[in-house]
């Protein structure tokens, strides 16, 4: 099964992938503390971008409310930790089903009543906004004043309670990104993957070809929301504070979708490459501006805008398909 997963991938692509992975594993040895925080952000966005890509890139369902699943995962695990001292991995077992339930609710409403395209996107925004306002008034999670996880100086890393140094979060998110990449590759090469692509391409034709489109769209939402909730748990324990206005805000949802769009919607490497381009370059820009003593608020957002404009105009399929073509990394079929 694992062997078959890489059938048709050119050797040079495998070698390049392995080299990049080795580099990523070795990065904390030579990266500065600041660099490491940037890399953490990159892999965070690569991972959630991959999760979002399942819905949009594979099954063709545009979600503009993925902050909902991040937030539900984050708040559930954080609240269980703050109130009951329950660790994040147990919190994950509660947070993921909650996020999945929310995703399934949206999916059921939309797919049962044939809400598609932009109307589906609006529904996802609406539910995320509803959660934002709801959590603002939920006293159990401290409402709008924010939920804080207890922080103390750490001498070591405790993976079980996710209390530790940034390097631990780095490896955790790197592992999650690699796992998500492999899982998505496996899904895409499976029966489900073929059905998703068919639905993305032409839903009516997919139905005529025998695909229960409701079922496969629901599967996409469930997997995507569950995966995203994991990122939320990590987010909560990395930042140690949660505000509904931040976590559930639509700008968080937009941030999530930028990396896969820039990298290439529907491609496996697009979310990873997009995260490197956007977060990597944006942080470099911020750093460079700070170095010369210039502080322009919102420079990062402007930079995101320019990147998006460039990609939409010059590479509408995203950067990765272009890179893959030029480096001859595209898949062969026997």
């Amino acid at each position, binding site marked *: 099964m694992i062997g078959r997963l890489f059938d048709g991938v050119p050797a040079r692509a495998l070698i390049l992938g392995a080299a990049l992975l080795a580099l990523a594993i070795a990065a904390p040895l030579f990266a500065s503390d600041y660099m490491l925080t940037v890399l953490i952000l990159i892999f965070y966005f690569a991972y959630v971008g991959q999760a979002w890509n399942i819905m949009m890139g594979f099954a063709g369902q545009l979600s503009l409310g993925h902050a909902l699943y991040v937030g539900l995962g984050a708040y559930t695990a954080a609240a269980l930790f703050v109130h009951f001292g329950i660790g994040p991995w147990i919190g994950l077992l509660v947070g993921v089903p909650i996020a999945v339930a929310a995703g399934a609710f949206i999916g059921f409403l939309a797919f049962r009543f044939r809400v598609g395209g932009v109307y589906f996107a609006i529904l996802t925004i609406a539910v995320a906004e509803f959660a934002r306002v709801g959590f603002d008034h939920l006293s159990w999670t401290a409402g709008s004043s924010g939920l804080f996880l207890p922080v103390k100086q750490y001498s070591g890393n405790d993976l079980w309670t996710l209390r530790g140094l940034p390097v631990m979060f780095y490896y955790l998110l790197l592992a999650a990104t690699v796992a998500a990449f492999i899982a998505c590759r496996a899904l895409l090469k499976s*029966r489900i993957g073929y059905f998703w692509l068919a639905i993305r391409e032409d839903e*009516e034709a997919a139905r*005529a070809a025998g695909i229960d489109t409701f079922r496969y769209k629901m599967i996409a939402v469930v997997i995507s929301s569950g995966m995203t909730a994991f990122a939320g748990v990590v987010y909560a324990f990395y930042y140690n504070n949660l505000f509904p206005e931040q976590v559930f805000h639509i700008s968080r949802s937009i941030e999530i979708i930028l990396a896969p769009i820039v990298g290439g919607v529907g491609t496996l490497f697009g979310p990873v490459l997009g995260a490197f381009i956007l977060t990597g370059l944006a942080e470099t820009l911020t750093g460079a501006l700070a170095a010369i003593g210039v502080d322009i608020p919102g420079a990062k957002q402007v930079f995101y805008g320019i990147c998006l404009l460039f990609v939409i105009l010059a590479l509408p399929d995203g950067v990765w398909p272009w890179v893959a073509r030029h480096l001859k990394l595209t898949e062969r079929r026997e």
Partner: protein
Amino acid sequence: MSSLLTVDGISKRFRGLLAVDKLSFAVPEGQIYAVIGPNGAGKTTLFNMIAGVYAPDNGSITFNGERIDGLSPDKVCRRGVGRTFQIVRPFPALTVEDNVIVGALQHRHDVRDAQAHARDVLRRLDLFDKRGQRASALTLPDRKRLEVARALATDPKLLLLDEVMAGLRPTETDRMVSILKELNRETGITILLIEHVMRAVMALAARILVMHHGAPIAEGLPAEVVRDPAVIHSYLGAEDL
């Protein structure tokens, strides 16, 4: 011969327009059966009712001994009815092979089995050499055959072909006719086709149903139907065939 498909008194009304009016016919197993008639006669509506896109307002559709009227399109397909669309709808960004694999996966869970089956189908439809191309890059005749290939890959007992000859040049029409004939002869598949190209209809159909304003005006052997005065008046015109 028992009938594989029995349409019994079905009607479909869209607002004020009666698109199909108490239509009945039966298609015996293994036969090629054609439905002809002028534009707006209700042929595609009839197809959409058989394929599950619309539920008929009245009447019943029985396929392989089971009622299928009112079932969703995917369920109808999985029971053994494959269809093509009048305006072709391949999955544009997928390769020709992947398009057909999607169909083949309906009754196969392993992608490799589906791929093997898809390739058999592609060979039959003369598309094997183009299997690596994106569907969006195909010419119309190729897309028409891809449409048939994808439907065929779902292992249907009954193939519904909605104007697969439309827009084809005569040589391409003949190629499609011979492919369909061979398919019917070798696999015994039942074919129900809507067609305007009389050259293809006469070459393929064992029986013809002529529709006009949603109702049948003639049904029978091709040679009888084309001599029927009502058919000549409403559809064929007085010209020689």
